[in-house]
């Protein structure tokens, strides 16, 4: 798993868990509070409805009392019901309608003790119908108030009915009166807020509250005069409901906001992870890559950085470690060279002895012949000359072979600018050479021949990298610089040739790796070894199609 992925998952975990806990808590609290509020609203509306019914009932009762008192004093009523006067009967038939309108009622029936309708306000011509059930029902229920489904000749209607009675001529008469009941006014509700109310009549309305709705009921005795074939008594209900739709909407809104916040957080986590990965992971990966290239032959890796943080410190530490390794490797290589010289000396001693031994034997033989048989000396010499010549040839070969071994580097002050000029002069026929030499460049302590070989290789490679471009130029610069606490002389050879790819650069210091036809693949290897032997550092900067710059930094004073 990559560092970036780990960072992203860590950010998500750190942010997601608190967010989830917050969302759950907010949802739960919203549910609890709104449900409680809904319950209060429903109960309040139910209470208002009950109070409304009580008020209307009291209003109807007061009007019925007034009608009762007026009717008891009305002589025409007495004439009609006691004396059977036809003219008074005609008056009585119309009494219900007129009295109902004057009293502001919607229902008015005058019945005799048998339940026969003597006069009806809402339905004038229903006189003489037997309808004893309604007064009996009203008399039997508490408060004598009920919801009545009454009817006119045209249609049915609802009325909140009450009962009153009077006695005339020793006979009892009942007054059934009712106020108009508009279900829409009875169940005033805030439909926009999800608060609803419905008047449910038995056998007519089958509304059932939806699942989860907050419900309250107000029961009202109910009498259906229009029921066919016979009136029926039952209970009507005012069902007050609070829809949970607003709560669901609120939940969705909260969820949407939390999801939006979560999305933004995830995006921020991704960006932060990417930024941190770029700030931390990539330098570490580069550091690891550079570290991976270090070996005894490649101790010139550049860990230079401008970062002031821990990664910068680590890079500098790695650079210092590499520098120490480089010095140690130089010393080790010197020790190794010295050890190797000892071996060579012993081998030379052995080989010379081996080469001298036949000569010594021939000389001893010739000496003895000269002493004992001088006359035979020329013959013996001729006989043994081949041995002498063979041994001398062997020794010459041996000397020539040893002469090929790398001589030890000299440690003398060396003028780098002079070496540069000499190398440039010899390479003028290969490329356009431009020199940018620092005046008063301090000398370095080292082997002039090694420095010359380094420059010859670098200038030669640069000239080859121009690929014959007409505007190709090899620029050699020298400068005095500071590397940490150390003063160095910096030489750089730059060309504007074809440059190198990353892969080419990665293999540029491998033995026998070359991109040139006929190349040995040892040039940069020798250069790097010589630079290391000189205690310096080598850095290559290249870009395909732009060119290559190789910088060599040699200490002004060789530590060795």
């Amino acid at each position, binding site marked *: 798993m990559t560092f970036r992925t780990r960072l992203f998952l860590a950010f998500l975990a750190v942010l997601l868990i608190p967010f989830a806990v917050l969302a759950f808590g907010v949802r739960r609290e919203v549910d609890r509070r709104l449900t409680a509020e809904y319950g209060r609203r429903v109960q309040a509306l139910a209470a208002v409805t009950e109070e409304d019914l009580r008020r209307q009932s009291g209003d109807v009762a007061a009007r019925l009392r007034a009608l009762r008192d007026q009717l008891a004093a009305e002589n025409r009523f007495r004439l009609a019901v006691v004396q059977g006067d036809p003219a008074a009967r005609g008056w009585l038939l119309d009494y219900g309608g007129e009295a109902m309108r004057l009293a502001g009622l919607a229902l008015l029936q005058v019945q005799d003790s048998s339940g026969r309708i003597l006069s009806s306000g809402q339905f004038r*011509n229903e006189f003489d*119908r037997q309808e004893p059930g309604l007064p009996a029902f009203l008399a039997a229920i508490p408060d004598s108030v009920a919801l009545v489904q009454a*009817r006119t*000749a045209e*249609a049915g209607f609802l009325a909140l009915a009450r009962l009153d009675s009077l006695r005339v001529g020793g006979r009892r008469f009942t007054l059934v009166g009712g106020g108009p009941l508009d279900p829409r006014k009875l169940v005033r509700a805030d439909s926009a807020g999800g608060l609803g109310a419905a008047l449910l009549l038995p056998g007519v309305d089958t509304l059932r509250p939806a699942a989860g709705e907050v419900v309250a009921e107000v029961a009202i005795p109910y009498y259906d005069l229009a029921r066919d074939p016979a009136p029926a008594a039952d209970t009507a209900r005012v069902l007050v409901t609070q829809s949970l739709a607003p709560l669901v909407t609120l939940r969705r809104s909260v969820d949407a906001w939390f999801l939006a916040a979560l999305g933004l957080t995830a995006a921020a986590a991704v960006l932060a992870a990417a930024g941190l990965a770029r700030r931390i992971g990539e330098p570490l990966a580069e550091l690891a890559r550079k570290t991976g290239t270090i070996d005894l032959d490649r101790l010139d890796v550049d860990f230079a950085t401008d970062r002031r943080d821990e990664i910068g410190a680590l890079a500098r530490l790695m650079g210092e470690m590499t520098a120490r390794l480089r010095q140690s490797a130089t010393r080790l290589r010197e020790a190794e060279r010295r050890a190797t010289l000892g071996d060579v000396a012993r081998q030379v001693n052995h080989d010379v002895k081996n080469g001298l031994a036949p000569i010594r034997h021939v000389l001893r033989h010739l000496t003895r012949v000269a002493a004992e048989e001088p006359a035979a000396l020329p013959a013996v010499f001729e006989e043994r000359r081949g041995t002498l010549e063979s041994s001398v040839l062997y020794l010459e070969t041996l000397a020539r072979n040893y002469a090929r071994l790398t001589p030890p580097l000299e440690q003398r002050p060396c003028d780098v600018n002079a070496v540069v000029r000499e190398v440039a002069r010899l390479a003028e026929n290969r490329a356009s050479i431009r020199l940018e030499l620092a005046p008063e460049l301090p000398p370095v302590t080292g082997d002039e021949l090694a420095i010359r070989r380094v420059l010859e290789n670098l200038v030669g490679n640069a000239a080859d990298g121009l690929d014959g471009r007409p505007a190709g130029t090899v620029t050699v610069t020298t400068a005095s610089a500071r590397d940490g606490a150390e003063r160095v002389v910096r030489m750089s050879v730059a060309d504007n040739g074809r440059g190198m790819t990353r892969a080419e650069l990665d293999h540029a210091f491998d033995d026998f790796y070359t991109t040139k036809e006929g190349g040995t693949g040892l040039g940069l290897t020798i250069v790097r070894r010589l630079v290391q032997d000189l205690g310096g550092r080598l850095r290559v900067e290249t870009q395909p199609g732009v060119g290559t710059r190789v910088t060599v930094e040699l200490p002004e004073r060789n530590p060795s």
Partner: protein
Amino acid sequence: MPRFSRRGPGLAAVFGPALMLSWLAGACAPTRAPAPMPPPRPAGAPELPAVGPAPSEPDECLVRPAGPPGADTIRVLAGPAFASRQLYETLIRVDCAGRPRPGLAQSWTSPDGGRTWGFVLRSARFWDGTAVTAEAVAGAWTRDSATVALLRRAGILFVTAGSDGELRMLLALPRDSIPAVLADPRLAIGRRSPDLAWPIGTGAYRLPEADPAPATLESTDAGRPLRLLPPPADLRDAVDAGADLIVTENPAALAYAAARTELTSIALPWSRTYALVLDVPPESATVAATAGFRESLARDVVRVDARAAAPATPEPACPAPPPGTPHPFRSGARIAYPSADRTARDLAARLVAVGVGRAIVPLDSAALLASLREGRETGYVLPLPRTLIPCDNLQLPAGATLVPLVETRAHAIVRRGVPPMTVDWDGTLRLLPETP
């Protein structure tokens, strides 16, 4: 002999729809008759002499309110039938007692027991001075298709003018009630003029020629003009405004007039029958078909002057209704009635109260007729005007039954000093010339 032809509208076309709409709109003023007049004979069966003129006998249908003459104009609040009766005459009049009396025809005879009839016209002139001739009468009738249909329903096949100036008629079957049939206002005589919107009549009053919507009728014999008042919202306002003659059923207006000494009320003949139309035989409409129920309706339910209607008498001689697809009335249990007719509403409501229906539904005149034709409702309460023409009843859907419920009549509130009037069989008043 000229045959019936259809060349133009006549008075039947002009006044027929008005009469139909008027009976459907209905008079809505309830009243109790202060002085009921003798009931007329049942419609369709008048006992009329086969030979005229009518005997001269005391005219009990004459109204002569005593008092000094009133204002220069006689102000009248009555229906269009009243105005028509002042403007146009029929060949025969039938008075409130059902007796035929001379109209434009001064005498009539039937030589063959009622199959052919001859009418001798009196010397009368239209308002423009043109003489009323048998040819003019026959021509006026035969120009109008509605009149032709009316005559045919009465059984009259041909109408022609004799060489002796007599108007002759040929019937399909002998019928001695033909003189009464000719008293129908739809058979009043008028002559159309291309310059006038209304036919020219022979009545004691005429329409001003320049007024396209006349509200005043001019006397043709130097009498006071008649001013036709628009109906007010409250009829008592017309009483207070000094109306001389008001025809109404409104009980409040009648009671108010009774309290005024300068006014008198006269009960007019029973002129309208309210009937229930059902799609069941009358014996099935148990409650509505009983005499006791009808009496209860007249006494307690209807708030105008009413009496129980006589049971329907079948008219087997009438032609069957045109064939159609019988369809049962719908079972919505609603009783429909003319929306402007309070009496019809009261009757329908009572029918609902006793269980004949479950609700009432008001319909305007056109909707009511359309609904009746298609049988959309369970029952219909309809006001039917009185007619002297046999088989002139409302055409009912196939299978429907008509149950008469109550008969009603209007009253005339008359200011003392108005000219004498006669009352015709249908309750219409005719002003007589004022004595100089």
